[in-house]
């Protein structure tokens, strides 16, 4: 049965890839190609682009990304637990309650430190800088 499932999913993948490839091929044969320098430049509202966009850039959410990894691992743990939850009973319930509570301590710490905010509040830091 599993074999059939995989073969039908494989057929689905093949149909998908073939569809995309054929469409691209037809488009390639049919469409015009008249490039020029202005047309091939990057779009920046009509102005000449200034510099590259591959620069060092503060993406702001790197701490959120780290927390995401931790929570995603938690979700991975919870999936198999959820499926067998009914047959195990109270013990499973208390186990995961303890697990979630421990995680919530870390979550509360991160929240309190302001790492979940898009613009981190640096109020105290700024005041002390002003005094100097």
């Amino acid at each position, binding site marked *: *049965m599993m*074999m*059939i*499932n*995989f*073969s*039908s*999913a494989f*057929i*689905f*993948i093949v*149909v*998908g*890839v073939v*569809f*995309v490839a054929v*469409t691209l091929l037809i*488009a390639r044969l049919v*469409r015009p*190609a008249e*490039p020029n*320098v202005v*047309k*091939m*430049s*990057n*779009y*920046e*509202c009509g102005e000449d*682009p200034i510099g*590259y*966009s591959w620069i060092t850039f503060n*993406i*702001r*959410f790197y701490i*959120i*990304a780290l*927390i*995401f990894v931790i*929570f*995603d691992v938690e*979700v991975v743990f*919870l*999936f198999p637990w*959820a*499926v*067998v*939850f*009914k*047959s195990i*009973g109270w013990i*499973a*319930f208390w186990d*995961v*309650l303890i697990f*979630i509570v421990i995680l919530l301590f870390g979550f509360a710490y991160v*929240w309190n430190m302001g790492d*979940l*905010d*898009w613009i981190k509040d640096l109020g105290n830091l700024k005041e002390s800088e002003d005094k100097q």
Partner: protein
Amino acid sequence: MVDYITILIYALISIVVFAVLLSTVAVLTLAERRISAFMQDRLGPNRVGPWGLLQPVADGIKFIMKEDVIPLEVNRFLYILAPLMTIIPAMLAFAVVPFGHDLFLRGRVINLQVANFDIGILYIFAIAAMGIFGIIIGGWASNNKYSLLGGLRSASQFISYEIAMSLAVIGILMVYGSLRLNDIAQYQGSLWFGFIPKWGILVQPLGFIIFIVSVYAETNRVPFDLPEAEAELVGGYHTEYSSMKFAFFFMGEYANMITASALIATLYFGGWQVPYLHNIGFIFPKLGIFHLQQWLVALIEILSFAIKVGFFLFLFLWIRWTLPRFRFDQLTDLGWKVLIPLALLNIVVTGALMMLRII
């Protein structure tokens, strides 16, 4: 021993499902414009064919005939890879969605879905997550400031809402005890107090709200369409794309909407279930049995599934013209400070209620 006829039947189902998915995408592009127009007291595109029904065909021809402008400064390999990485997973995610009872055909059991994987819902999450990579890579490879910002917003939005979505689904998995979407749909036919169908929305109302909000964020739809906010980022991650490559991004987004609607219907609204309809016909409690052929039952179920999915697709469009776009800090706040704590609470409450035999 491999049963070739069964494989042939499934191959046929795969191709039919793929064709239906593609035509739904096409109809949806028209429906979006027409419904938007009606909500703004306009007519919308109505010139090509009756009621504008051939408009998607005209759009498709135009996409194919357009010149494909690839800017000189892009990273060519990733630039071409990105739209493919968006559309192919978007199409594949639909493979595990069930749309009817098992059929019994001369000793063969045929599931009315492309592939009945044991890990059903994890497959959808895994494959749908691949689509986000296409957006991020496309945004970066374009070497355009607007695209880069769109891609980064998409990444941040994805990590903010993915957890809430998975945690909301865990509530459903606890109640129904299976990862297979077909089993989940099957269990929702069982009755509560003998007459109320045990649909997900009744068992998991809080989980439903968390899930639907997260799904809107994951599919980059209004009010969470910041990666392509046209008022501030031109086109967001697809600013530099033209011709068929742009069309692939576009179709990927619509295919994701369809999969999302199918998932909402399957997890929370009984999927293909019609209340009191079993594989031998309608069984009304205390009223008796009304027999039907299995072909007729399958047909009613597919129709019921299509109506549910259609309603949720309409809801996507409806909400687009009802709610304004979020600001970005509001968006991350909603994900991390509201939905994730609520989803954890939902898991604990669901567990307690199940242990006390209330659900």
